[in-house]
């Protein structure tokens, strides 16, 4: 995804706002979805991800802003006039139709010839492995089978974009894992753009080409699973995706290639630049990168007490209490030797494994600074 290359944008969400009874659920959302990619919209319930999906499908109309499908503004297009299809959370199969008629529904509406309908539906039934179930009614099927019908019913129309609204939410864990793999394989095989909504961060990490993390109606970060996991841009992303140790501090000293961050419980040197003196920052360290040692490590003055070891199969999780009461988590392979509970230890991490994030106040400060610059005014007149 190099910036110089011409991007093939299939869905463009531009400055979209959506309010229900005066309550803003989607705020100034901007997002480009590229042709053929598997994009996941991830966020806690109520973050506006499903509303965004419903706006792309046409079930909701944006309060302001525009949505483009293949470059065309679809503001006045009804759901039946858009070349996208949806897989609903609760399947939403037609209970009075059998599997064949459910899948054929869209083709019948498009007035496709009968023998072609038969051929395409049968092809779909094979693709989702429901052979021999053509005559079954939805009430006679299990959750996983119903989900396959719902997917086939949408895909048979060869949509430009397939929208999936937590499609695996109602399935048990094992079936969900299996369906995740199948969905990903289907997407690769057909090359259709998938926009997938989920609150399950693990699901998002395993399936997606890109993840768009949403919180309270705003887009927090868009990036590949590796990017959002390893380099979270906001505290929310760091917290929501995977486990994280998030430590607050401020920049006390600066050298040419590093900053020294002072936290409530100690100090650490971070090889990062571009911060101001006294700037408030968050450090985000994944538990697998947080290490403990009885020896003092260079660049760290950060000590805590081992409180508890939790055995989680292949790994051990060690809880370390810092002087200010914060609990830090460190995950180590199960075969590693454990430091006895109660020992005072030095906490450290490999330089580069800590992600430094500006606090929200700093971000707002930067935004104001930028906009003031744009307007051609001198910063120091205001600040």
């Amino acid at each position, binding site marked *: 995804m190099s910036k110089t290359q011409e991007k093939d944008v299939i869905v463009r969400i531009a400055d979209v706002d959506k309010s229900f009874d005066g309550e803003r659920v989607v705020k100034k959302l901007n997002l480009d979805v590229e042709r053929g990619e598997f994009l996941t919209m991830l966020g806690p319930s109520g973050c506006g991800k499903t509303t965004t999906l419903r706006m792309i499908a046409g079930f909701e109309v944006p309060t302001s802003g525009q949505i483009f499908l293949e470059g065309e503004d679809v503001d006045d297009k*009804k759901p*039946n006039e858009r070349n996208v299809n949806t897989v609903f959370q609760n399947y939403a199969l*037609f209970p*009075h139709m059998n599997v064949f008629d459910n899948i054929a529904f869209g083709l019948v509406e498009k007035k496709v010839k009968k023998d072609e309908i038969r051929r395409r539906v049968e092809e779909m039934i094979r693709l989702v492995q429901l052979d021999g179930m053509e005559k079954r009614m939805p009430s006679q099927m299990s959750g996983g089978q119903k989900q396959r019908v719902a997917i086939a019913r949408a895909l048979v129309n060869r949509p430009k974009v397939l929208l999936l609204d937590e499609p695996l939410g109602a399935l048990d864990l094992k079936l969900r894992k299996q369906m995740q793999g199948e969905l990903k394989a289907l997407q690769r095989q057909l090359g259709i753009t998938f926009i997938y909504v989920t609150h399950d961060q693990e699901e998002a990490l395993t399936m997606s080409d890109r993840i768009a993390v949403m919180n309270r109606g705003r887009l927090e970060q868009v990036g590949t699973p590796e990017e959002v996991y390893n380099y979270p841009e906001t505290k929310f992303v760091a917290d929501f995706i995977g486990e994280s140790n998030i430590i607050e501090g401020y920049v006390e000293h600066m050298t040419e290639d590093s900053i020294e961050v002072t936290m409530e419980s100690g100090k650490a040197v971070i090889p990062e630049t571009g911060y101001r003196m006294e700037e408030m920052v968050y450090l985000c360290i994944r538990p697998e990168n947080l290490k403990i040692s009885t020896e003092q490590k260079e660049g760290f003055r950060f000590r805590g007490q081992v409180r508890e070891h939790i055995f989680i199969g292949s790994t051990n999780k060690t809880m370390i209490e810092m002087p200010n009461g914060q609990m830090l988590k460190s995950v180590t392979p199960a075969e590693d030797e454990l430091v006895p509970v109660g020992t005072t230890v030095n906490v450290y991490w490999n330089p580069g494994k800590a992600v430094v994030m500006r606090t929200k106040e700093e971000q707002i400060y930067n935004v104001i600074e930028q906009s003031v610059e744009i307007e051609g005014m001198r910063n120091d007149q205001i600040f």
Partner: protein
Amino acid sequence: MEKRRKVREFKPGSVFYACLVYLFLYLPIFVVIAFSFNTSEMNITFEGFTVEWYGRMFENRQLMQSFVNTIIVAVASTALSVIIGTLCALGLYKFEFKLKSMISSSLYIPIVIPELVFAIALLIFFSSIHVSMSMVTLVIAHVTFSMPFVVITVRARLAGFDKSIEEAARDLGANELRTFFRVTLPMISPGVISGGMLALTMSLDDVVVSFFTAGPESQTLPLKILGMVRKGVSPDVNALSTLMILGTIVILLTATLIQGKLEKKM
């Protein structure tokens, strides 16, 4: 296990009790059927078997005319009730508007109000707007009291309706009208049918409202029978009643069968 068995066993006492209940319910009907085959014109003793009264009944042109009237009124009022009632129920389900709760509870008024009061109200209404009583007023009157039943049965069906199923149809390329006929209507059809059956039976045997809103040319069967029994119950009324019972049973059975089939599918 032990307990369940006990419930399933027939006790002679309960069998006897059940028989008494059924006897109480159906004995009068059997008497009517029996006397319709009686040679004697008096409904006191059974003197011999005959089908003469059935023949006489069919020869009675006035009686036949009122029978045809009844069918026309019943079918027309049922069709109208089903259409208006279903649309009303859908509107109440889909849209939020002011005074919604007041409008939906006002639908029960024709059901709870004494029928006589309702009939007189209709009579006064029609005469005050100078409409003379005819088949049309009769049909309108029947729609007013049977439509709420359709609304109630269809709303009950809609209570468990998943809106995303309609959205799925829209998503798959069906417009509003196609969605209604291919998805919504089939799904609520058990409610529509039972509402229609209620409307039909209520229209077929209505006396009170019909008495006030029928014109001289639009006498219905119940009104005709009422007129005939004033002069004593004649055997041809018995014959007619027997046929009506038979007709009702047939309609009831078909309705149950259709409904069972529809519900089994879903």
